[in-house]
């Protein structure tokens, strides 16, 4: 007979049934039985698995005594060595959701597969969605039963080492990975069916859910331009004529920097735009359209700005993935910061 699957359930004080907000400071406790909601999980697992233990921790304790809580949970997992860890459902409880995510990551680091559950708006999702398998739930504990079925199913799958299907087929939140695959119907039929569902007020599932862009904290404004050292950057693929360094015409793998300290302006015939995403001839006739050195020199000479950074940065932006672009941007920023450049102008095409 195969060894029964052993599940450990991480719960906060409320869902373990050892008290409400007052017990939020409860330290990490391990009980070799199913407490509170863990009993419901056991019921959902039926005979396929045993709930070997419940790890309980107050949400405040996990947050305030962070190091201690983490190390105690880690220790518990090492002793218990479950086949899978389940954390939550945390619904909309933010601290609980964040803790569930962290506990799952701890478990993974110990070689224990793990799955959590919480409402998609839980801050734990934002924080952990790429690393942790999370089952979406309703906002309140009224959705407990509904959450337990997919949670139990995924827990068993993980415990058995079975390969995971797509997020929509398995019922977990997408972790930011997309892979090619075939659907049952061709695209045109899916599009028309989706439209008819939308028009008829029937449910439909967008094949690419909305994902808000990452916003960035604005840098503080420059207080005195006259002290400013300013760098010029472009994604217009501007290179010295002849492209001596072999910049690609797109899909940038590197950025390039060229000395401009001896130049008053960028002259046609000395530079060219090597880029397959736009009509480059006008920039070839006047490279200052994408690397406005001529204007910067005028302003530098008029004392409006302190100086132009001696290096200009360039790369061919077209067909460069977001991930690659981020990496290149970080690289350029690091160089500029090291050179104590105060600001930069980035011209994109």
């Amino acid at each position: 007979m195969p060894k029964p699957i052993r599940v450990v359930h991480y719960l906060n004080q409320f869902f373990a049934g050892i008290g409400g907000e007052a017990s939020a400071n409860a330290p990490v406790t391990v009980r070799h039985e199913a407490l509170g909601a863990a009993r419901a999980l056991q019921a959902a697992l039926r005979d396929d698995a045993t709930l070997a233990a419940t790890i309980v921790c107050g949400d405040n304790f996990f947050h305030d005594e962070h190091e201690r809580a983490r190390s105690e949970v880690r220790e518990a997992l090492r002793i218990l060595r479950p086949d899978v860890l389940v954390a939550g459902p945390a619904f909309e409880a933010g601290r609980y959701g964040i803790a569930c995510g962290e506990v799952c990551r701890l478990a993974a680091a110990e070689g224990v597969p793990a799955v959590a559950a919480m409402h998609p708006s839980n801050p734990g999702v934002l924080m952990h969605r790429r690393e942790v398998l999370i089952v979406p739930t309703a906002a309140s504990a009224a959705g407990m039963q509904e959450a337990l079925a997919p949670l139990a199913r995924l827990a068993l799958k993980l415990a058995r080492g079975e390969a995971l299907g797509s997020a929509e087929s398995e019922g977990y939140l997408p972790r930011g990975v997309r892979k090619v695959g075939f659907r049952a119907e061709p695209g045109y039929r899916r599009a028309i069916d989706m439209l008819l569902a939308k028009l008829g007020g029937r449910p439909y599932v967008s094949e690419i859910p909305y994902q808000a862009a990452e916003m960035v904290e604005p840098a503080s404004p420059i207080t005195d331009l006259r002290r400013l050292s300013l760098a010029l950057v472009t994604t217009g693929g501007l290179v010295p004529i002849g492209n001596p360094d072999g910049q690609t015409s797109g899909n940038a793998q590197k950025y390039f920097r060229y000395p401009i300290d001896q130049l008053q302006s960028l002259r046609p015939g000395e530079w060219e735009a090597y880029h397959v995403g736009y009509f480059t001839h006008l920039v070839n006739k006047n490279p200052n359209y994408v690397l406005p050195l001529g204007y910067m020199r005028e302003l530098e000479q008029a004392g409006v700005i302190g100086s132009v950074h001696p290096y200009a940065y360039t790369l061919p932006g077209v067909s460069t993935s977001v991930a690659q672009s981020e990496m290149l941007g970080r690289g350029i920023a690091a160089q500029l910061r090291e050179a104590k450049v105060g600001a930069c102008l980035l011209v994109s095409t």
Partner: protein
Amino acid sequence: MRLELGTFPVSEVRFGQGTRWQDGVLTIDREAVLRAVHDDPLVATASLEIARPGESVRIWPVRDVVEPRIKVNGPGVTYPGWFGRSIETVGQGRTHRLSGIGVTEVSSVNWHDAGGDFVDEFIDMSGPWADLIPQSEIVNVCLVVEPEPALAIQTKNEVVHRATLAISDALAAAVRDLTPPQIEVFELSPAPASLPGVVYIQCVHSPQAMSHSEHTFCTGTYGLTRLTPPWLLHPNEILDGALSGPYRTLFATSWTVVNNPILLDLYRRHGRDVRLLGVIAFRTEWTTQTEKDLMAEQAAKLAQMLGAQGAIVTWDAGGNEYIEVVHTVRACERLGIKTVFLTSEDSPEGGAPSLLKPVPEADAIVTTGFFNTRYLEIGTLPAVERIIGYGEKAAGRAVDATVVGAPLVDSAGAIPPPWRHDDHYGFTRLSSFAF
């Protein structure tokens, strides 16, 4: 506008005496049909070869595939407006077509010489690439044609495509006066008002931005390739080839546009599930924010004036053209027109969003997978026994050919698929999933 479309299915093509169709067999009089092409003094060389589904054949480089269609009666000519062809509004009367076949335009002529756009597609008639493209399932009558080398690039394009249309006309002429085994009537007959009014917004690339010319050859609306405000077309006009000419993928060819399954399925469901109101042909690659947004607003307004309650939006390009396309989706939604957007995706590397710009109003998306074949897990294609076209191609993407001394590979060998797949109209089941 009522169009009778008569279909003559082709299951077998062979060269022989006299061009005729009988019981699914098309015989092509090679010399006779090429005569029209050779009559053009600007054509240097031209030949015809046949590629059949399942054969170990690769066709390279492919500029367009055209389905032979001809007017039997009714105004105008099929594939109107190109290079002096009549501009009369089409879509009425009767048109005959040969199905299961295409005239495949094979030439080394590039679209334009301003840089940035390159002919970079090939058709495999068997193997993993064949499995992903619709043209592997039809007989490709390949016109391998070269114009006089000293011509301006625009003239070269005209010579090449005019030759393709001449072959298409000649083949379709074989069935003009015959009785079609299949006939379908296309008409937007009055439909119950209770059915939702639906508009199809077809965004098509214009080469004007990349070439800085209004005359560059590419997809045309009545032969016009330049950037123009949205066109309102009757779907019958599209069936008669009013929107034709290629862009840069096998899904953006004259053949795929007249066989567009979204258009055909919406049309066939007219009166039953929807009221199809019309097609808005939206030209893309505007290069200022103002122009992009203006066209999007106008397209949505057109849809609203037609009484649209729903819309499907597709596009055939990439990069910054996404902006005006997704803004059209957004503009429609803001007018209360429920919209579905069918699109391919950018690179999924690093977990970053695979669409250029996040738009919350675009909440009903159908994805045809990643347009970059690198993410389609195709691997290297097997070598083929026969090449139609040219024996060499630049390694990897054609854009590498801009680099002097780019390595050339044997085009019949084991090479990677073309860089772009991009199922613009949802022909296939290829898609992507979140994990």
